[in-house]
């Protein structure tokens, strides 16, 4: 391993298919990535690119049917999460892997107190008594920055604002001190100032607790501020992966470049300030035989129609370790 330590999470060749009436939707197509201890991996891509489905496939959160996690391995430490029993997987969920979802308004159960919902995983995974769990839950609420934590345990979710609810979700996800925290667009549903507060909170918690984080967003601006490494997804595939600096300074995939142009800039003229990528995300029916981005790609050429590009390294390091891209086209023409 390039940076010494073994990864906490190592995903290889993950394929997830939805069986629908219209055919098989190949939502995740041979996705591989890893996560080093304490690292923050940013995952970007527009809506429908397969980010959520990828992460939910890892820990068996997709309803099956229609979902079918068809191939690959998900090594958490030395266990393959795709091979263990449902019961073992439940012991992993919420204990070793914490999950924060997009919409804090609907992600908490409206009829139970916040305290009850934080204490549940503590009693389930840590074998705590109710009294112990209550003490720990109070600590957790204080940790995520909720004032008057002991009293707020008795509150119901509707008595919290959106930002506060997301803090509660983070407290639940971190309750059992997981190795990995997966945050699926945790700030998308919040307004800008609250977004910034949640980002600060996560940065702070990361320093204190040292867990590895997968941070999903469609906002590259957020990624620039917090990620160590970035993985760009499109059409259910990883199209580019690089350390955060390399990705911003030297984007290779036409989709990444287009995404970077969509970041609002304060200096450009009005028209250039906010761009959108022309065209529609691909429909993922059937196994892909061509580059998923071809219909919207300014660089597309004949080969893009006939062959789905593999990820290839740009800096000589193994794919996934350095900077890699899945595109037939190359600015220097060398790899094409």
């Amino acid at each position, binding site marked *: 391993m390039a940076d010494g330590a073994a990864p906490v999470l190592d995903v290889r060749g993950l394929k997830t298919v939805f069986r629908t009436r219209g055919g098989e939707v190949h939502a995740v197509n041979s996705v591989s990535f890893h996560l080093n201890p304490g690292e923050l991996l940013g995952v970007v891509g527009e809506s429908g690119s397969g980010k959520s489905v990828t992460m939910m496939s890892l*820990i068996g*959160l997709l309803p099956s049917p229609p979902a079918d996690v068809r191939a690959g391995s998900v090594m958490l430490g030395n266990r393959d999460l795709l091979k263990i029993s449902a019961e073992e997987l*439940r*012991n*992993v*969920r*919420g*204990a070793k892997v*914490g*999950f924060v*979802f997009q*919409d804090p308004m*609907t*992600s*908490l*159960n*409206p*009829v*139970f107190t916040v305290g009850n*919902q934080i204490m*549940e*995983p503590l009693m*389930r*995974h840590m074998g705590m008594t109710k009294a112990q769990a209550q003490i720990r839950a109070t600590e957790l609420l204080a940790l995520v920055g909720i004032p008057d934590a002991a009293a707020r345990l008795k509150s*119901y979710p*509707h008595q919290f604002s959106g930002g506060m609810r997301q803090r509660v*979700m983070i407290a*639940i*996800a971190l309750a059992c001190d997981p190795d990995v925290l997966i945050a699926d667009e945790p700030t998308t549903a919040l307004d800008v100032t609250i977004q910034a507060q949640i980002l600060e909170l996560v940065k702070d918690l990361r320093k204190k607790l040292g867990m590895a984080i997968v941070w999903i967003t469609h906002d590259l601006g957020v990624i620039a501020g917090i990620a160590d490494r970035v993985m760009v997804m499109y059409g259910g595939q990883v199209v580019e992966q690089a350390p955060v600096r390399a990705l911003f300074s030297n984007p290779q995939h036409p989709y990444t470049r287009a995404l970077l142009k969509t970041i609002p800039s304060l200096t450009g003229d009005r028209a250039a300030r906010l761009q959108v990528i022309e065209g529609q995300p691909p429909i993922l029916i059937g196994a892909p035989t061509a580059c998923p981005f071809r219909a919207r790609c300014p660089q597309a050429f004949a080969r893009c129609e006939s062959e789905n590009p593999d990820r290839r390294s740009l800096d000589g390091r193994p794919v996934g370790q350095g900077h890699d891209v899945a595109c037939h086209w190359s600015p220097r023409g060398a790899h094409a």
Partner: protein
Amino acid sequence: MLTFTIRRLLLAIPTLLFISLVIFLLVDFAPGSPMSQIPLTVPPEVRLRIIEAMGANEPILVRYLLWLKQFFYVEPLVLIDSLFGTSHAEGMQRIVSWQSRSPVMDIILERMPQTLTVVGSAYVIGVIIALPIGIYSAYRQYSWFDQVGTFISMIGFSVPTFFTGVVLILVFSVNLGWFPSIYDTSLRVTSWETFLLQAKQMAMPVAVLALYNASQISRYMRSSMLDNLGQDYVRTARAKGMAERIVVLKHVLRNSLIPVVTVIALGIPTIFGGAIITEQVFKVNGLGALLINAIQGSDLPMVQTLTFIFAVLIVLFNLIADVLYGMLDPRIRYD
């Protein structure tokens, strides 16, 4: 919640007064007269005296006010007297049936047990059957269990109870002879044998009504569970590693029960009124049968009082449903 309940109870008073007036007027204007019950051979002056004795010749407003006083003042006093052995109501005129000339309330109290045992137990059994079926059907949506359940409840729901009742009588009483087709009200359960007899005569009317109730409530339960199974908080519970049993029977069920409990509470008054037809079919001598007979005999005090009691129950259980809703759903704040 308490202030809400008190406010609603106070509001119910004018509502019920208005309802009682409407009932009184409607029943009074309906065709049919108490005189039709008196044989034509009775001489006119005797007829007149009978009618005077019944109070039926008074203007409607006087009769209404008298009825109000009797219902809200005299009858409660009679109840207190019978409970505590006092004699506050001595000498006061009670609401009296034109048909039988005995106090309406006594007759109602006498008929109540039949209705409660038959229709009430059918309702309870229906609810007890419906909840697990609804829960499991939703959890295993489109499974064979769900399909069969849907089919049976469609039948139970859409075939009228008088039809299922007659079919059951034909099959199990007439052809097989397993159960009696007529309900014997005078049967007293004093031994194992009489208990078996009672169970036998209750079996068919209870089955008919329970099937109907269970069909309806299991549908509510199922759709409420389905609404909730797809919610984000269910995914959160699973992401916490909670067992399916906890996810479904704690998180989903607790939310799904909120509307279902309301529906169950709202359905309780129909125990008293809605079983009229089934009581007729199986000759159960209960409140439904009492109402039908009173209507046929133009027994206005009986019809007015019974109808008004149904109305009170409906208003009361509406309130109970609202209070339950507020207790089950922490998001509801009435005050």
